[in-house]
């Protein structure tokens, strides 16, 4: 019987002495190289690798974490129900719980064999600009496709996904295959609407761990890396998204979401409550459906707002903020360290920035003053036409995406059983994801494509160690 060792015992292991024939830079991993989240790092490599609280969590936050966890996992039901604390689902919704898409706090999966989508959703908009520079919602369907609805209301429809497979070759002649998705909106029959010009933005549910640490990185540190006009001429720009903060009522730096269209974990969470589950909050007091839809429903009671209290919302937020990043595995392996050098040499690290620091005076003590290794700069980059979704979002153009963090990358399969990468889950392996990189990342992709097989493997081994 195959058994995985869930606990890595190398928490404070000391680097093995280097072999004499290794170049010196390979021999010297940085102290703490394996600690993806500094003192918050947990050592867990199984199914629960993304589900543990910060290693240094104190009693107060542990309690909030535990209660928030239960609201993250448990399904919400339509009101009125006997479970007064968990009703308010719908009328339109995508899923019944946070964990339905972020399974075990990991990433969603694309639907297979005609199943109704869960871990993937579609944002909608029409040309033009909405309030505060946001995308302009469709007048009938709103800004997100709801594939589910409570009794009395009707789902908005579904999207038919087709993949076209095609072949490519590495520099050394060995072949690879990629799949390109295409989408066809299949509207439900309940609503009469003109769907010409509607823009579809597929979005895969990203993993949740580590978001508290990313939120604790000072804004100046992120903006300092921005190079919107590529002044340094390295072919890589990096732009901040500037988005609307509904609480502060002003335009601020965006950090979360595939296009960095949300400023913080709380607003991201409240937006997901209302957009994905039809649950209103103080931040988003109105249901996510349009007046045109309300008009065609029969016997759907008007909901009382807010459906999720500030108290519960805050606990769900704190739960996510205190989910720890897992430690690296095999960071000391010579091949992995060689891959790490290649990662830098290919300029992957120009956007997937290995190391950041959280604010020393950050309000959540466990997250303050940590050296973290998320492998992101939290900025937008042009990733080329192949990845463009044709749907701008605040300052983010159709082809621009926020650098996703890579910590925990090698544990996706252990946590979720499948691998789907990029905003629409088209990549079935990390290598496929690399091969889709275009735009500013084209040179890095070509560097990888031209590497000999042993070097490509080393780079993949490095990514697998994250």
């Amino acid at each position, binding site marked *: *019987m*195959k*058994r*995985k*060792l*869930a*606990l890595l*015992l*190398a*928490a*404070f*292991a*000391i*680097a093995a*002495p*280097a072999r004499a024939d290794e170049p*010196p830079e390979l*021999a*010297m991993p940085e102290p703490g190289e394996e600690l993806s989240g500094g003192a918050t790092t947990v050592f867990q490599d*199984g*199914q629960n690798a993304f589900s543990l*609280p910060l290693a240094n969590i104190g*009693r107060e936050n*542990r*309690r909030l*974490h*535990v*209660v928030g*966890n*239960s609201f993250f*996992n*448990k*399904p919400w039901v339509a009101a009125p129900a*006997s*479970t*007064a*604390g*968990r009703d308010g689902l719908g009328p339109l919704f995508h899923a*019944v*719980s946070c*964990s*339905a898409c972020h399974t075990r706090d990991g990433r969603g999966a694309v639907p297979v064999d005609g199943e109704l989508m869960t871990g993937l959703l579609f944002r909608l908009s029409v040309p033009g600009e909405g309030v505060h520079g946001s995308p302009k919602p469709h007048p009938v369907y709103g800004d997100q496709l709801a594939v589910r609805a409570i009794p009395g209301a009707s789902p908005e429809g579904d999207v038919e996904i087709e993949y076209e497979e095609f072949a490519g070759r590495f520099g050394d002649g060995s072949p690879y295959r990629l799949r390109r998705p295409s989408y066809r909106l299949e509207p439900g029959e309940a609503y009469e609407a003109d769907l010409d010009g509607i823009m579809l933005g597929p979005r895969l549910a990203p993993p949740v761990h580590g978001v508290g640490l990313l939120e604790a990185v000072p804004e100046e540190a992120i903006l300092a890396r921005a190079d919107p006009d590529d002044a340094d001429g390295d072919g890589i720009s990096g732009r901040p998204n500037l988005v609307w903060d509904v609480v502060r009522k002003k335009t601020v730096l965006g950090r979360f979401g595939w296009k960095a269209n949300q400023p913080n974990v709380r607003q991201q969470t409240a937006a997901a409550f209302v957009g994905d589950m039809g649950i209103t909050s103080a931040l988003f007091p109105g249901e996510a459906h349009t007046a045109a839809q309300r008009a065609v429903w029969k016997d759907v009671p008007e909901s009382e707002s807010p459906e999720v209290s500030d108290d519960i919302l805050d606990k769900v937020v704190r739960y996510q903020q205190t989910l720890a990043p897992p430690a690296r595995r095999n960071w000391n392996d010579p091949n992995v360290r060689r891959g790490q050098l290649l990662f830098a040499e290919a300029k992957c690290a120009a956007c997937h920035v290995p190391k950041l620091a959280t604010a020393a005076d950050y309000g959540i003590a466990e997250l303050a003053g940590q050296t973290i290794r998320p492998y992101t700069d939290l900025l937008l980059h042009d990733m080329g036409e192949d990845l463009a979704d044709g749907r701008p979002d605040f300052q983010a153009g159709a082809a621009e995406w926020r650098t996703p963090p890579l910590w925990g990358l090698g544990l996706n399969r*252990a946590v979720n059983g499948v691998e789907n990468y990029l905003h629409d889950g088209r990549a079935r392996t990390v290598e496929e994801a690399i091969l889709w990189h275009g735009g500013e990342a084209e040179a890095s992709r070509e560097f990888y494509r031209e590497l000999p097989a042993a070097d490509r493997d080393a780079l993949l081994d490095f990514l697998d160690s994250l």
Partner: protein
Amino acid sequence: MIALILRIILVSALPTASVLVAAEDGKNPENLAEVCRELVENYGEIVHASYRDSLAEANRLEEAIAAFLEDPDEAGLEAAKKAWIAARQPYLQTEAYRFYAGPIDDDDDGPEPMINGWPMDEYHVDYVEGAPEAGIVGDVSNYPEIDKDLVARLNEKAGETAITSGYHAIEFLLWGQDTNADGPGDRPATDYTTAKHADRRATYLTVCADLLTDHLAYLVSEWVPGKDDNFRAEFAGRPPLEAARSILYGIHFLAGKELAGERLLVAWDTQEQEDEHSCFSDTTDQDARYDAKGIENVYRGRYETLDGKTISGPGARALAEILMPGKVEDYDAKMDAVIESVGEIPAPFDQAILGDDEVPGRRAIMTAVEHLEDFAFMLADLEQELVKETNRR
């Protein structure tokens, strides 16, 4: 290169420093590996005996259910409920062996979600108030045949709370929904005679009991001594400090995140019966007591079997004696406080969680939560000491 040389000097300097420190604070780590080996061996004996006891009681439960279903009446239903309550007692103690990917919750084939899956949205199984045709029992067209394969396959299929098998599914099929303030659910025996879908319900209950004994038999086989291809053998073959750390982690996680957190604090916070562990039978207070007893078994290295034998040897406490000799009394005192405070949690739990924070029930629960949290933090400290020793070697 200078940095490299410095690092090598540091590495070689460390053991000397630690020996000096060890001598000062009275630690005695020389025989740590040997004690860890004995701990792992004694632990294996306890785990095996307690799974065997769990299986024996589950077999009695299966027999009581079969006897009830032969000619269903209220007396037979009562007998089955009593058997369920008795069957929970040894099993809950085995929850101390979870959380380190052992046989119970190994990523690939651990049966834990099939045995004790919770919280359970009962409408996936059978009727509830307002939904008389709900669940697999009522869904004749989609599930014409109810058998072990179906019930096992559907467990958690529709989400983590879509539990279809295990103790809590059986609990629901015996007690029914608990809509009473002052007592548990009161499903009538006629649910198995004249009620709609009575035969399908009976089949479902039989299947659940059968699956439960299958899964427990599997766990016994993974821990039986003297085999060379089961988990017990593999675990005994691991580096002893590593295996000891897994043992510690299991009780640390059960005490802290699971029992203090998920099982007690969440319900305390929400004041919702939905968050109660054994909500149909109102036996959540018993759940907490026997979970705490499971922690104590591993801590003290002691287990009393159903047939009156005592297994005794080094427990997690032996690690404290070596690694934190000045604090063993604190560990012992906290362990006692856990057992005592958890024992004070009143029944029925769904009523004890109600009211303001000063009502006796809520205070009792919070006191237990605090002691469990304290003990979990202390076990985490012990784990860190063990890790430091591991890295010194």
